[in-house]
């Protein structure tokens, strides 16, 4: 078990915050998660939203009503320590080992975290479109616009915003379809299943669709 010190706790609003931890000797890859443990030893996995080059670890966390870990994390103070696992992961936005001319990211809610890690490094070497859905505009944590080729944003629970009012899946007709493109999906299982099916029905190979589903289980 690792221990990291809280060096930042920044609230976007009451239920959404960014937790920053000192990095110590941790090395990680874009797309990695850490399991963060509360004082009872209950753990939840969170994607790291900072890039491997940065000198600290960041996480984008939604406080779940009655959540065993997120609520506990939201109440931590600077200088307190949090127990974590070592980094692990299998979702690699911008994977340089793949022959891809372009990539398209799909995220809902805090599913933007691994993509924030990707955009936090230098300029992307691959052209990247972003499809991003949140419940409210205040939930949006947008990557730097200059690093994105095109972004398509949907807000599902508010009508009068500058973004599309509805679900991210309403925007699928705008998705560029090509066998040279890799598609990266992170967020709730319903969105991931729906977009995967959409892509597969348009002839995109299973091997070009990369998924990170919020964890299931006990």
């Amino acid at each position, binding site marked *: 078990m690792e221990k990291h010190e809280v060096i930042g706790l920044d609230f976007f609003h009451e239920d959404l915050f960014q937790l920053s931890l000192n990095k110590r000797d941790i090395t990680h890859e874009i797309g990695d998660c850490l399991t963060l443990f509360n004082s009872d030893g209950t753990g939840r996995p969170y994607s790291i939203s900072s890039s491997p080059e940065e000198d600290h670890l960041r996480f984008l966390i939604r406080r779940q009503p009655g959540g065993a870990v997120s609520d506990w994390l939201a109440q931590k103070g600077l200088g307190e320590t949090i127990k974590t696992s070592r980094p692990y992961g299998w979702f690699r936005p911008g994977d340089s080992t793949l022959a891809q001319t372009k990539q398209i990211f799909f995220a809902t809610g805090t599913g933007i975290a691994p993509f924030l890690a990707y955009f936090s490094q230098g300029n992307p070497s691959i052209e990247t479109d972003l499809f991003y859905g949140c419940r409210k505009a205040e939930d949006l944590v947008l990557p730097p616009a200059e690093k994105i080729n095109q972004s398509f944003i949907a807000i599902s629970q508010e009508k009068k915003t500058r973004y599309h009012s509805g679900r991210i899946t309403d925007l699928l007709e705008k998705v560029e379809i090509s066998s040279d493109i890799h598609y990266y999906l992170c967020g709730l299982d319903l969105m991931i299943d729906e977009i995967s099916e959409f892509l597969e029905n348009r002839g995109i190979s299973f091997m070009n669709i990369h998924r990170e589903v919020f*964890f299931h289980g006990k």
Partner: protein
Amino acid sequence: MANDWLHTSTGDPRGFIVAQELKELWFHTGTSCNLSCPFCLEGSSPGDNRIHFITLDDVKNYLVEAKELGVKQISFTGGEPFVNPHFIEILAHCLEYFPCMVLTNATEPLMNQIQKVVQLKEKPFQVRFRVSIDYPNAEQHDKGRGKGNFTKSLKTIAILEQQGFEVSIARLQFQEENTQDVDQIYQKLFEKYQISQDTHIVKFPDFDTPNSSPEVPEITETCMTKYLTKEQKDAFMCNFSRMIAKTNGRLSIYACTLVDDDDQYATFGTLKESLETKIMLKHHRCFSCFAYGASCSEK
């Protein structure tokens, strides 16, 4: 009463196995998994570190001796092996020297890396996969493994087969089941997902979670001689296999894949030395091997 390594609670000499050979060497890739199934034999979950990620250097320590001892296959279990960040390079290295088998849940960690897995077809030896499909319906399977994972796993099996990999599935063995009937339900499922009808189905009883202490009958020396034939005794995994796992930063050799929660089954020397160690059938899971002939291997 005794109830120690050598004796049962009634003081009788405990049943044991002395390995005859080493045909199969297993590596535990670590207990970290993308799923948190409540019934997991290994107690695996995201970030779990009871058994650490094994590395390529860890594996290399054993391959030369494995070859000398005549090992026929390297097998991998977890956790979910594809969660281990070193796993593809470990597998690629082992496939230079041995056929391999990987136990996987065939969900995102494998799905996301399938292009790299397909490249392993070029290696001198082949890898095959065993995927857990606990029940032949989504409702029961996903109740434990998470919504949508039944379909994902079956789709991944179909892709692996299309790419030329051999895949078997592991299912639960139900009490008093009609095996033929259950297997037929699976075969209908294979048809639906365009999976080969010949796909091998391996059945497992409920082994209980790690560190549990279910009450099972004890196995005495007399049980081993009175109730089992030589062939049945030879089929015990500890007769022909060993598993390497890394706990507390140290590599250990376990008698089989199912006893890594009990340090009494760990040795720390060479593979040859581990084969010379008498394996006492004390663990509650030993009874499953005794009673049902269960084995993680596919002999």
